[in-house]
């Protein structure tokens, strides 16, 4: 319900609902305006009564038209949902329209004649002036043939199924309940003090790294949240259920994120701003960045450059890092995907020897359940896999520091 309300509210505020609506409501406003103006401008009582009767004719015509349209749409929808539907089913929807429309036009023509007979030209000019001043009157100034523009969206608002074909943001009105790794909002979400991914995760660090980073050597987390396509290419969301389960149970910082993408024919460019609320030993954190997505039928590549900044708690300096992740996703089957990812990460630019190259693999299965899509995902990452230039010693691989994550994310259309 929350998502339906949110999507409806956004559609309402952005004017999308009225752009998608049929013209019935606007025409009703115009007829009402005509009625008011006629009452005001036509002083002769019998003529005014005749004019109002004529306007009632227009109202009745509009009601009939809307009824016909509702019946036609319902008929088409019924045919669309029937596997055994034939040409006759579709024809049965449109056949009555011809005679209905003809009779409607006749009744409207007679209402028009009645109105013209009742209202003299000077009064009609004043009525017209009052009505045409309304913004709704734009509907009456129809565009010339060939210049009409459709207000239909430029991006499909359905759920994107195959993982490799997905864009950087979910389509408008699509909601993602994130409780699994490898989802778009957590791509490259590597802050200096923690790496954030959805789902349940177990991270193991070797003692050296644990001492160095202050992170417990065995760490269980559970992170869940949601994202919603607020506009065709704008997504916002939050991982608002970030729990640390072990070694000590507590509520981790919440991650909020906003992504705006620009779609090109072969690739997408995106700007993402993430924020992390203060934690027990960290202040606010921001993570602005750019993303490039190249979707494909079987293979997709995603690249990003992020600059995570953790604003220290009182007395501490800010920690600034840089992270450039790369993820390749391959769909051997439309429902099954495998991913490999790496990055160049420098978690603390002010410190020497912090350059890290992580390595990770993931897999997932996309399952259609009714009108919802579920991605069941799992990942295995060495977040500090290669240290090319550590402060002490030479380049080394760290196999003992790894993270396993698993979970499922759900996608559905709110409207």
């Amino acid at each position, binding site marked *: *319900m*929350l998502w*339906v*309300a949110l999507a*409806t509210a956004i559609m309402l505020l952005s004017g999308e*609902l009225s752009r*998608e*609506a*049929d*013209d*019935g409501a606007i*025409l009703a406003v*115009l007829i009402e305006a*005509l009625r008011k103006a006629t009452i005001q401008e036509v002083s002769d009582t019998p003529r005014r009564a005749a004019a109002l009767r004529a306007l009632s004719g*227009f109202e009745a*015509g*509009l009601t009939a038209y809307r009824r016909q*349209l509702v019946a036609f749409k319902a008929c*088409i*929808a019924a045919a*669309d949902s029937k*596997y055994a539907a034939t*040409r006759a089913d*579709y024809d049965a929807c*449109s056949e009555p*329209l*011809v005679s209905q*429309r003809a009779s*409607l*036009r006749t009744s*409207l*023509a007679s*209402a*028009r004649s009645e*109105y*013209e007979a009742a209202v003299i030209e000077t009064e*009609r*000019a004043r009525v*017209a*002036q009052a009505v045409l001043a309304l913004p709704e009157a734009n*509907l*009456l100034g*129809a*565009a010339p*043939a060939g210049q009409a523009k*459709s*207000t*239909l969206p430029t991006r*499909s608002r*359905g*759920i*994107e*199924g*195959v993982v490799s074909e997905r864009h950087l943001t979910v389509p408008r009105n699509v909601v993602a309940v994130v409780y699994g790794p490898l989802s778009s909002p957590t791509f490259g979400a590597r802050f200096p003090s923690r790496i954030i991914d959805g789902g349940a995760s177990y991270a193991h660090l070797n003692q050296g790294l644990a001492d160095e980073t202050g992170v417990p050597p065995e760490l269980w987390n559970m992170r869940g949240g949601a994202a919603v396509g607020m506009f065709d290419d704008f997504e916002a969301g939050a991982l*608002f259920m970030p729990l640390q389960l072990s070694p000590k149970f507590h509520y981790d910082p*919440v991650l909020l994120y906003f992504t705006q993408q620009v779609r090109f024919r072969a690739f997408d460019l995106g700007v993402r701003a993430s924020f992390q*609320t203060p934690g027990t030993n960290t202040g606010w954190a921001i993570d602005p960045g750019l993303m490039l997505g190249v979707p494909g039928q079987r293979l997709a590549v995603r690249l990003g450059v992020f600059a995570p900044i953790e604003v220290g708690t009182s007395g501490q300096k800010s920690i600034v890092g840089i992270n450039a992740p790369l993820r390749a996703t391959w769909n051997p089957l*439309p429902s099954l995907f495998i991913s490999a990812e790496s990055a160049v990460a420098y978690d603390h630019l002010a410190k020497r020897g912090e350059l890290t190259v992580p390595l990770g693999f993931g897999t997932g299965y996309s399952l*259609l359940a009714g*009108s919802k899509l579920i991605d069941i995902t799992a990942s295995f990452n060495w977040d500090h896999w290669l240290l090319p230039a550590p402060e002490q010693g030479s380049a080394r691989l760290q196999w003992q520091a790894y993270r396993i994550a698993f979970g499922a994310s759900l996608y559905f259309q709110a409207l």
Partner: protein
Amino acid sequence: MLLLRALVGLGAVLGAAAACSSRPPPRLAVELTARATAKEGVVSLVVADRARAARLRAIYLEVVALSRELDQARVTARAQCANALEPRAARPSPPDPIASGALGCSIAPPLTERAAGNRYAQLMLEARTLLTQREFEKLARMR
């Protein structure tokens, strides 16, 4: 906890706003587009055969294009209807929405979108030939 309360509060405000505003009925083109795009994105997950899935996607995308045509046909029909009406010797300025026929043409434009309607039916029937009943029902559940 504060965030949770804020979310609940936001939900209540949005819910009230959405409940208070009645949603006007969408145009036919919007409904057809919504039904087609809901299926287009997931058709590959339902239909394993890549060739069939590709044709189905093309069909659903053609429905989207047809919906645009329907929208355009509606506006064009309205304009043609108003132009075809008997020209007045001395048209009042500003044009009277009733006498000019603009209101009548907006309420009941002539049926010029029949070609698009026929093509739509054709496409939907072709889609059935590419789908098993089980696949069809799975896709129909999307919207």
